[in-house]
C-alpha cells in the first residue's frame, strides 16, 4: 500500500481562532491524509520540531490575527534549517491579497483565504507533494 500523505495542521502565535484549522484538519483526514493538529499557541520552533518528529510531508498553518507576515517566514526558515527541504508549507487565514506575494517569496507554497473550499486544499496537496 502506498504511504499516506502526512499533514501537520498548526496554529502559530497567540491567535485562538481555530474553527478554520479544525475544519481543514478534518476535511484533510476525510480525504485520506494522516493529520496531526498542534493545538493553539505554538511557537515557530515548536511547529518546526513537531514537523520533524512527526515526519510530515505538509505543514498547513492558520493565522487570523494579522501576525502572518512575521510568523510564517520564521516557521519556513526553521523547517528548512532542520533539513526538511521537501516539506510543502501552506498557509491560510485572514490574509489580505497584498500580503500574499511576500509570503510566497518567503517559501509559503500557497495561501488559502476565507471562502476557500476544503477540496481546493486537498487538490493542491495531492498535486504538490
Amino acid at each position, binding site marked *: 500500500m502506498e504511504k499516506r500523505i502526512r499533514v501537520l495542521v498548526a496554529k502559530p*502565535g*497567540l*491567535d*485562538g*481562532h*481555530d*474553527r478554520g484549522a*479544525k*475544519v481543514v*484538519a*478534518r*476535511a484533510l*483526514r476525510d480525504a485520506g491524509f494522516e*493529520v496531526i*493538529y498542534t*493545538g*493553539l*499557541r505554538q*511557537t515557530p520552533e515548536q511547529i518546526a520540531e513537531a514537523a520533524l518528529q512527526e515526519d510530515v510531508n505538509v505543514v498547513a498553518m492558520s493565522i487570523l*490575527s*494579522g*501576525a502572518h*507576515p*512575521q*510568523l510564517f517566514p520564521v516557521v519556513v526558515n526553521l523547517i528548512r534549517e532542520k533539513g526538511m527541504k521537501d516539506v510543502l508549507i501552506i498557509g491560510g487565514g*485572514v490574509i*489580505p*491579497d*497584498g500580503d500574499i506575494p511576500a509570503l510566497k517569496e518567503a517559501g509559503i507554497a500557497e495561501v488559502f*483565504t*476565507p*471562502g476557500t*473550499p*476544503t*477540496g481546493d486544499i486537498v487538490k493542491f496537496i495531492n498535486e504538490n507533494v
Partner: protein
Amino acid sequence: MSENIKAALEAYTSTVEKAIAKFPERPNLPEQRLYTPVDLGDQDYVSEIGFPGQYPFTRGVQPTMYRGRFWTMRMYAGFSTAEESNKRYRYLLANGGSGLSCAFDLPTQIGYDSDDAISAGEVGKVGVAIDSLADMEILFDQIDLSKVSTSMTINAPASVLLAMYIAVAEKQGVSADKLKGTIQNDILKEYAARGTYIFPPKPSMRLITNIFEYCSKNVPNWNTISISGYHIREAGSTASQEIAFTIADGIAYAEAAIKAGLDVDAFAGRLSFFWNAHNNVLEEVAKFRASRRVWAKVMKERFGAKNPKSWMLRVHTQTAGSMLTAQQPNNNIVRVALQTAAAVMGGTQSLHTNSRDEALALPTEESVMVALRTQQIVAYESGLADVIDPLAGSYYVEALTNKIEKEAWEYINKIDELGGAVEAIEKGYIQKEIQDSAYKWQMAVESGEKVIVGVNKFQVEEKPVEGLLKVDDSVGALQKKKLDALKERRDSAAVAAALANLEAGCKDESVNLMPLILEAVKTYATLGEICGVMRKVFGEYEAHVNL
C-alpha cells in the same frame, strides 16, 4: 384549538400536494412550510409569553424597550498603541457612538508584556497593546469615565484590566461606585471556543467570584461578566447550542459564586450576556426571545433568586463576523444590516456592527462609519424600534421560540448529567458538539446546499481590495521602549512588595485578590509581571483537542 382551523389547514395541505407535483419546492428548506395557530396549541399567553419587563421576559427586559431610548451603539475598537486607539475612541464618541468597547491585542489578553518573546508579531494586531497602567492612562485620555460606559473584551486577566480602569478613574477624580461598564470575564467559553485562557478552571473560577464579590461592594454599576455565546457561535455552533452552552456556563458561574458564600441576588443582577446576530433573521429573533425565557426560569426556579433584576437576561450583541465574506466585501454591508434588524427585533441592550472589510483585515475608519450608520438607520428610519417585540404573535416566530427553548433545555440537561459546564468542557463534549456543527456547515456550503452569495454562487472576477488598514509593525518596538522607560522610572521596591503580597494572596484561597491586584497595578507593575505571579502559583491550562 378550534376544529375549523385544523380542517381548513388540512384542506390547504391537500391543495399544496397538487401544486408541488407541478412546481416542486426548493430543496433544503425548513421542514415545515407554514405556521398556523395549530403550532402554538394551548400556549398560555400570560405565563409563557407575558409582557415586556415582566417574567419570563420573552418580550424584553424593559417595560418600554426602545421607546424610551435606543440600545447602546457600542463599536468594538482598538489596535496598535494606546495613543492610536484613544484617537479612534474619541472619533466614535464624536460621531454618535454611545459607549466604548475595547479590543486588546493577544499578548494583553493572554497576560504577556509586549516585550515577551512569545508576543513577537502579535503586538497591537487585533487590539490595543496594554502593558501597564501607564498605557491605560493614555487609552482613556480626555474621555470622562464618569460619563461613558466601557466594555472590555478581556477574560483571563480581567481582574488586572478592571483594576487599571478603576485606577485611571481614581486619577480623573471619579470614584469606583460611579463607573459603568462591562468586563467579559468569561473563561469557560475561552476553553470551549475562543482560546485566550491562561489558568486552569479552578483558580479561574476563583478570580471570577473574587470580582463578583469585590464589585458588588465597590463597583456596583459594573457588569462583572459577559457570558458569551458569540464566540461559541463563531466557532460554528447552531443557534440553540449558542444559548444552551452559554446558559450552562452561566449556571456554573452562579454555582461557583454561591459556593463561595455569595447570595444569588447580590451578584445575579450584574451578570450580562453576549449573543451573536447571525444570518437567519427570524431564527435569531426567536433565539433572543427563547434565551430570556430560559435564563429567567434558571434564576427563579433553579437558584431561587427573588429580585426580578436577577431574572433578566440583559444582552450585548455583535453581528456575525464569520458570516462576512472576503469576496465582494460590499455585500457585507447588507448582511450586517439584516443582522442588525434581527438583534433589534430580538431586543438587544447594546450592539456592535461589523464592518464590510473584516474578512480581510481590521476595519478602516470609513468602513466603521458605515457600520455605525447602519445601526442609526435601523434606529431612526426603519421603524423596527418603535413598537416593542414586534414579531411576537407571529405563528412562526412563537413556534420557533418554543423549539429553540426546548432544544436549549435538552442540552442544559445533558450538561447537568455530565456534571456541569466545567466538566463538560474538560471532557471535550462542548468543543466536539461545536466542531461537528462547524464541519456540517462547511460541508453544506461546499455541496451548494447552503448558498453564500459571492462565495459559492454569483461569483465574479475580483481585483484585490485596496486601502485596507495595516497595523504598523513598529508597534512592538515602540511598546518595548515604553516598557524600558517605565521600568527605569517606577519605584521598583514598591513593585516587588506588591507582587510579593499578591503571590501570598494567590496561595490563600480565602483571600479576595482584587484589592491586591489593584495595589500592584498602582505601583505600575506590568500586566506580564502580575499574570506571571499568578501563573507561578496557579499553573496554566492545557487544552486537549479531539478532532
